[in-house]
């Protein structure tokens, strides 16, 4: 196995807001060689090759990988933290296995803008998500404050293709 362990070294419990719990974990080996491959595969990742730092969102969670550590914010509890460690470990090992068929990406990808998100939304301003406009929804979706599931319109059949595209952009 390429990466044997992802060990939690810091976790912030008992905080006033469960959404603000965060943790840091150490990889059992340096994974810097695999970061460009992760960058190629995770379409919403922001990667800085010079500082060896890769960040992406998963729902409300913000996940940052460096060559030696994993940092995740907005987890709900300890179980969530350890599930995330397992997920990242499996992700890295999978990418390592497939590295011969992946073209590594060393450049920083252009971050999707509110407009990039908005163009896949229904643009009906139906307000069923609780926001007054689809643009407002897109601006909260991009920072993880809202989830794509909260847009009921996009889940209607006629928007199916757009939903898939949006999920790809948001990695969800």
């Amino acid at each position, binding site marked *: 196995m390429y990466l044997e362990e992802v060990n*939690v070294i810091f976790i912030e419990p008992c905080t006033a807001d469960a959404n603000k719990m965060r943790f840091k974990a150490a990889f059992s080996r340096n994974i810097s060689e695999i970061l460009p491959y992760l960058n190629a595969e995770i379409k919403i990742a922001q990667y800085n090759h010079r500082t060896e730092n890769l960040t992406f969102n998963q729902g409300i969670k913000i996940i940052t990988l460096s060559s030696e550590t994993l940092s995740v914010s907005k987890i709900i509890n300890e*179980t969530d933290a350890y599930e995330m460690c397992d997920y990242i470990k499996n992700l890295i090992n999978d990418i390592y296995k497939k590295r011969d068929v992946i073209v590594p990406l060393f450049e920083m990808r252009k971050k999707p803008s509110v407009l990039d998100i908005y163009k896949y939304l229904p643009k009906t301003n139906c307000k069923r998500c609780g926001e007054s406009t689809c643009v407002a929804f897109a601006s909260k979706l991009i920072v993880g404050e809202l989830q794509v599931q909260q847009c009921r319109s996009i889940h209607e059949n006629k928007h199916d293709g757009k939903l898939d595209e949006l999920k790809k952009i948001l990695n969800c």
Partner: protein
Amino acid sequence: MGIYLDNAATSYPKPQKVIESMTNFMMDIGATYGRGAYETAIQSDMLIYQVRKGITDLFHFNDVKKVIFTLNATESLNVALKGILNKGDHVITSSIEHNAVWRCLKTLERDIGITISVVPCSKEGFTNPFEVENAICEDTALVVFNHASNVLGTLQPIKEIGEICRKYKIPFLVDAAQTAGVYPIDVIDNNINLLAFTGHKGLLGPMGTGGLVINWKGDIKPIKSGGTGGDSTYEYQPDYYPNRLESGTLNVPGIVGLGEGIKYIQKVGVNKIYHKEKELLEYAFNQLHEIEGITVYGPQDSEKIIGVISFNLKDKSCDEVAYKLGRQFGIMIRAGLHCAPTAHEIIGTKTTGTCRIGIGYFNEKKDIDFLIEALQKINK
């Protein structure tokens, strides 16, 4: 040390690693779970997570957060029954439930006004799944069944009952106190919504450990409120799992020991454990039938039961037989009603009780031979 044949009450002995892991935890780590940022507290968090994961693997489940730790199967059943049922709800259950289910249901019937349908079973303890379907009505909010009787060992058609529950969208709660660790359980394939298990029987862990696997999206009102380690300014129980149903400090050393029990089972394999116990059951049935005046209850078919055999000797009380086995021969079995009076009603032993042997993975044929020899001497 004598011969232990009371594994249906609790398994004995435990694998050495179960004991060592608990001692090591208390000596070297000793920190609580979910409440600290220092290194040993984080180690404690990781150990608890690994046991939750071991449980999901063992029961072929996929959501680690929906594994709740409790003190035992009784507490798990209380958490589920009292957390789901409301006034006016109808519940369907078997005729051979342990008091862990039965007393809980009767208390809810008296105190909040639920109604209970008890599905009939054969004298061997078999339930026809169609009887469950026939009992379903508009208010049916839950079906609760034991996986195997602790008196007769009879396995219930869990998968078929689960399919019926799924068809009618009724949650299905299974009491796996006698089967977890000794009989294969697949929560998803068996259509089980809630699985209550204990840690100290087939799972080979210590007493004071158990849990509830929740494969259901409905709400379970917490029967306990208190500290969960996070979100402390919020004045009510959190709505996320496992914290919603876990208040107060967990029995971390016990759970660590349970984890080692599960690792042991996974290393050996549940199927291997089941087949060994089945072989011992077959052997025991053949030997018991050599004893004059013995009445053996239940299906007497190792294919249809787990490692439990109830019997009585003619003109001898079960208490006398169990006492003599213990005092004169060092053989440990259980006598009485085994906390399941309704099962004794089915086999006609509610006033007398039965002797019960509970076979475990660490028993051997020679243990059965000693038992038979002792019973023949008591019979004279």
